[in-house]
């Protein structure tokens, strides 16, 4: 009888240990799964707003996109757009308060024809557009999309 009671105690201890292990692993897995789900959602929304931004730039077109600041070597010019903010649904909002994602467009023009403090584009200039989407909470980059525009091109 006493021997059977001893076995029950050991069985209970092992069972408790297994339950604890399963709970710990399960909790970590749950946290990891939640992070994956959040990352998946952010990537999805970020991809949509980045693509939309590049498409907007393409519609404005090679000739009409804003010019940038000439680099020191006069070989290129860079335009950094204003930072835009978006909520969880990918809808633009006016400021950073409560924002879920942020987006910034950058345009690099090269080669360029410099005349004094201004410059112009020519038939062999390329306008490289990159759109960077970041997590508005911690400023980490989620994704970057980009393309190149040329005169009379797509």
């Amino acid at each position: 009888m006493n021997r059977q009671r001893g076995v029950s105690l050991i069985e209970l201890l092992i069972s408790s240990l297994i339950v604890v292990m399963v709970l710990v692993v399960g909790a970590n897995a749950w946290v990891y799964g939640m992070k994956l789900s959040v990352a998946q959602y952010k990537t999805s929304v970020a991809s949509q707003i980045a693509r939309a931004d590049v498409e907007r730039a393409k519609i404005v077109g090679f000739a009409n996109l804003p010019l940038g600041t000439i680099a020191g070597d006069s070989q290129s010019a860079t335009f950094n757009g204003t930072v835009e903010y978006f909520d969880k649904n990918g809808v633009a909002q006016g400021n950073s308060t409560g924002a879920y994602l942020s987006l910034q467009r950058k345009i690099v023009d090269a080669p360029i024809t410099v005349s004094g403090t201004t410059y112009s584009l020519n038939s062999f200039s390329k306008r490289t557009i990159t759109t960077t989407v970041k997590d508005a909470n911690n400023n980490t980059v989620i994704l970057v999309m980009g393309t190149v525009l040329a005169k009379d091109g797509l």
Partner: protein
Amino acid sequence: MKVGLNFNQKGSVLPAVLIMSAVGSALVVGSLTTAGSHYSLSVSRANSEAALLVAEAGLNDELALIATKTSTGTASTWVTTPTKLSGQPYAGRKGTVAGTNGDFWVYASTTPYGTTPWTGTGPVYLNSTAVVGGAVRKASMEVKIAAGTPTGTSGSDFNALVFNSATTQGGHSEGPVAVCGTWQGPYEINQHTTPGKVNTIGNIGLWMCGDLTKSGNVKKVFNGYDAYVSGSITNTLQMLGNGKLYKTMDESWIGTQQSLWTSRSETLETTPDLRINVSDPNNINVDVSANTLNGNLRVFWVNATDVKALKTINFNNMTKDDTVVVNVIGPTVDWGWTVNAPFKNRLCWNFVCTDTITVKNRAFTGMMLAVHARVSQYNNIQGNMIVNNWKNYGAPELHFTGFKFEGSLAGGSSTPGSNASGTVGFAGSYNAS
């Protein structure tokens, strides 16, 4: 029959826990797998979207590249051929969109996604394949390409084409000189050869968008050639042989040339090339005909540190139709090579990423294409000098007779820039997959 666990029996707790743990673990693994799959799918979709943008970037990149070539050579050489280079997964020229992941490969053919090279006439399609993180997208569009009309305008008409300032202690040039910036110090311009041309203007000895300042003797333009100077001149310039001085000029021309030559320089740097074997301690021999990567455009490369040693380089088996380009890779060049070639006027040294070049130990022979470089000249330069800044010491010369560049950087047979730029653009047919 009774099914299930009898918890009144001793010893049933462990099996029950094990079963529940197994069920719980299966649920957790299942949830994680689902979450992971969704995340992978989301990333794949994002990569696919990005890849299409990169593929379109490839098409526009090729358009811009073609635009740099339509002023020279034959039409078929303006486009990238559907050749799959060794080690590359797709046919065409490899490129990237700076700041993003992924690559594109772009080429031209006679049909969408076709493999027949364009011969210079008939329909031409640009085809691009892009890979971003495993996602592959393709795009193709029809383009119209037309050559420019001959104007005689050529940056290579000038013995020296300097995009920014110049400082000289003396010396002379055989050919015309163009500078955009301030030029200080004495110099004798255009002593021998034919004048330069800008657009429809000829008889040019000096083309100067900036100020001429005096230090020592004045500058002199010889042989009745004209000077065009937009900046101040006071007591710094002497016109010999009844050459005229004009104050009105196209100040943007040198800037356009800078863009054009920069683009050409970058294109040459990415053109398939062979490394020159510099292991011989004395003479370097290059078999030009053995380089068949780009037809008659024979492109080689060396490290900037290689050209420092005092050696002689012989370009052997070079024909009158060949153009030899040597990409010199490195930020600093201390020139030390004597150059032997049967056609020195078809030889181009391309310093695409070089900041400083010193020509002191040996004379430089061939066209010096160094769009970003500051050149310190102590010794003669025999050929075109296309540079960002120029400073000479003593009285070194710029030689042009027999050295004026006549090669074709597009692989054709005519001089670069001998035509105005042609046109190239989207012709209305586009598809993507």
